[in-house]
């Protein structure tokens, strides 16, 4: 494993999602949960995905790892994984055996509900060594146990709790066990789907601090999914903002904070009360997130958008890219600040 995070350069891609579309249900009743999503994850990068409920961010995580269950279906697109020392391959066409090896060894997921993701009737140690038993059959029992001790130490859990049951741990500890499990095989990518949403802010901070330190040490890439844009601004290298199944803006975190382009991103940024600076009245966003069964025609955001014109009701704006920034809006371009 490399020691430090290598710089994120365009040539150093680890996961590429192209034109990924996912429907729930069939034919006319189908809900388009993901609609032509493009995303690129660089090696060592922390990519934040921000979106409200129904924006498709969790669907993206399960579709890209092929964990999507019926009635969800991948309609189109590709997910290309670039291993360090072999040619890239399409995840969506992997066979069962290869898929099983790819998951957990190359990519792992941490889900939001740690309580539901841990088996309540087996001890933590068994849940950690199970992974090793399946993926590393050559390891001896003693080695597996040794590795389990290392893993709990890695996430800062007292060693004696290795033999505890999940209900004996606090919510924050359970979530750290989930992170330990995700790291068991030293994956390239860790996908975190709202890993701290159910936790208190202090616990959240503790886990994220730990996660950052591990990332610096082990050099894995992270896809961090949350509804909390302010949290992503603290953590991420790059942020993608999703709305109604599409990526509407993607840019380095600094750019998103200093100069958001999409009106939705701008509105989201104005929705967080701050603890510093003067106390100001915030306006927030008008309206409510769209019902995916009835997504407005044209730009899905036009009903809530202060910039909306007639063209927004008719045409879906394409995602335009320039200089590591992209935005999907008729009136904002990644090249210049404001057009029109």
């Amino acid at each position, binding site marked *: 494993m490399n020691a430090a995070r290598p710089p994120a350069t365009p040539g150093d891609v680890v996961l590429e999602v192209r034109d990924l579309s996912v429907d729930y249900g069939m034919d006319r009743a189908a809900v388009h949960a993901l609609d032509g999503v493009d995303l690129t994850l660089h090696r060592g990068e922390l990519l934040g995905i921000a979106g*409200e409920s129904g924006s498709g961010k969790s669907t993206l995580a399960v579709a890209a790892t092929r964990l999507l269950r019926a009635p969800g279906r991948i309609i189109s697109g590709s997910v290309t994984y670039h291993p360090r020392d072999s040619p890239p391959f399409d995840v969506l066409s992997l066979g069962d055996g290869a898929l099983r090896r790819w998951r957990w060894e190359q990519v792992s997921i941490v889900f939001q509900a740690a309580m539901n993701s841990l088996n309540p009737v087996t001890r933590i140690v068994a849940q950690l060594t199970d992974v090793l038993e399946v993926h590393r059959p050559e390891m001896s029992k003693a080695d597996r146990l040794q590795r389990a001790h290392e893993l709990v130490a890695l996430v800062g859990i007292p060693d004696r709790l290795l033999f505890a049951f999940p209900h004996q741990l606090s919510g924050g500890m359970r979530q750290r066990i989930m992170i330990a499990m995700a790291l068991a095989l030293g994956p390239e990518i860790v996908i975190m789907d709202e890993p701290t949403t159910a936790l*208190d802010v202090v616990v959240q*901070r503790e886990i994220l601090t730990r996660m950052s330190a591990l990332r610096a040490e082990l050099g894995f890439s992270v896809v961090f999914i949350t*509804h909390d844009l302010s949290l992503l*601004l*603290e953590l991420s290298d790059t942020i993608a903002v999703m709305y109604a199944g599409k990526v509407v803006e993607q840019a380095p975190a600094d750019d998103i904070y200093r100069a958001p382009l999409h009106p939705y991103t701008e509105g989201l940024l104005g929705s967080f009360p701050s603890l510093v600076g003067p106390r100001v009245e915030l306006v*927030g966003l008008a309206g*409510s997130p769209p019902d995916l069964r009835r997504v407005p025609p044209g730009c899905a955001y036009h009903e809530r958008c202060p910039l909306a014109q007639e063209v927004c009701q008719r045409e879906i704006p394409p995602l335009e890219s320039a200089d590591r920034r992209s935005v999907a809006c008729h009136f904002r371009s990644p090249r210049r600040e404001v057009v029109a």
Partner: protein
Amino acid sequence: MTGEPTPVPTLEVRGLVKYFPVARTRTARGRGRVGARPLLHAVDHVSFQLDAGRTVALVGESGCGKSTVARLLVQLLRATSGEILLDGKKGGRRSGRARRAWMRSVQMIFQDPFASLNPVHTVRYQLTRPLVNRHGGHGASKGAQLDALLATVQLTPAKQFLDKFPHELSGGQRQRVAIARALAAEPRVLVADEPVSMLDVSIRLGVLNLLAGLKEEQRLAMLYITHDIASARYSADDILVMYAGELVEGGSAEEVTQRSAHPYTRLLIDSAPDPAHRGRLLEGMDSTAELPDLVDPPVRCRFAARCPHAMDVCRAQSPVRIELGEGHWVRCFLYGEGGGAADATGTRRAESDGEVHAPVPGGLRTSR
């Protein structure tokens, strides 16, 4: 509390205590009370007041007892001891007219609008019921009042919403219906228990602004319960910080957030993601995140085990309330000689001016 003092506060809480008996287990030791049932100290001697037209935020982590306070205020729970006064009159009777009158005057908004509205009834039904209970008469005659109610929570045109079922509404709309239902009883006090934490980020602000507007227009005394200290600063006049069943700091929202005194308040502030302070969140933490065991807790500062400034006295005595001026107070041995015990152990006295309790990590002098 700051602001022009009214002769009688709308709602006053004095020494409110709620203990829950818990089962005797191997881990919950009886600590010197052989034979007695162990007690979980959910709310321990909490006092505050709510005034008309003002919002007080009660801030704390899950498990600190803030929702128990809410339930005590609306009489869903009976207090172990202490009193709650509404316009100077005592509540707490178990049944009868007095209790019903109380419940009309003190209304609550719950966290989860998906669970707090009855799924088998329309909005019209859910809002007509409290109107009939409040004013009598027939449900059919309440049309104008229904329209007005929905207008106050900005659900217009009312026709579009009256005959809908909860599942046909979005989360934000449901929470507005829940607010309208609380307002139908024409309450004096509104207790909002995490009213926006289940809502999408983009609509939270709308609901917070709505509550602030209602408080002004209807002169409500509001208690806003939240774990999010940034939103407390945004929407409240005063902030009370609660930790492990006790209030640890209080004062005007600006005082508490800009010149926080208690190490716990500072921990909460430092842990809140804030784009304006990027990069600070992941700087090292000097506290752990575990709440103490509240079953028969020993007499001591309950934050001592997590506190980076903990001294011997913190583990031996419970801190008393120390006034820092302008209505700002704290329960911590790092402040004031009023604590007495602090001086006895030779602790340096922290001044109560802005410089010492500036909201900078490490701005507080560490005592040896």
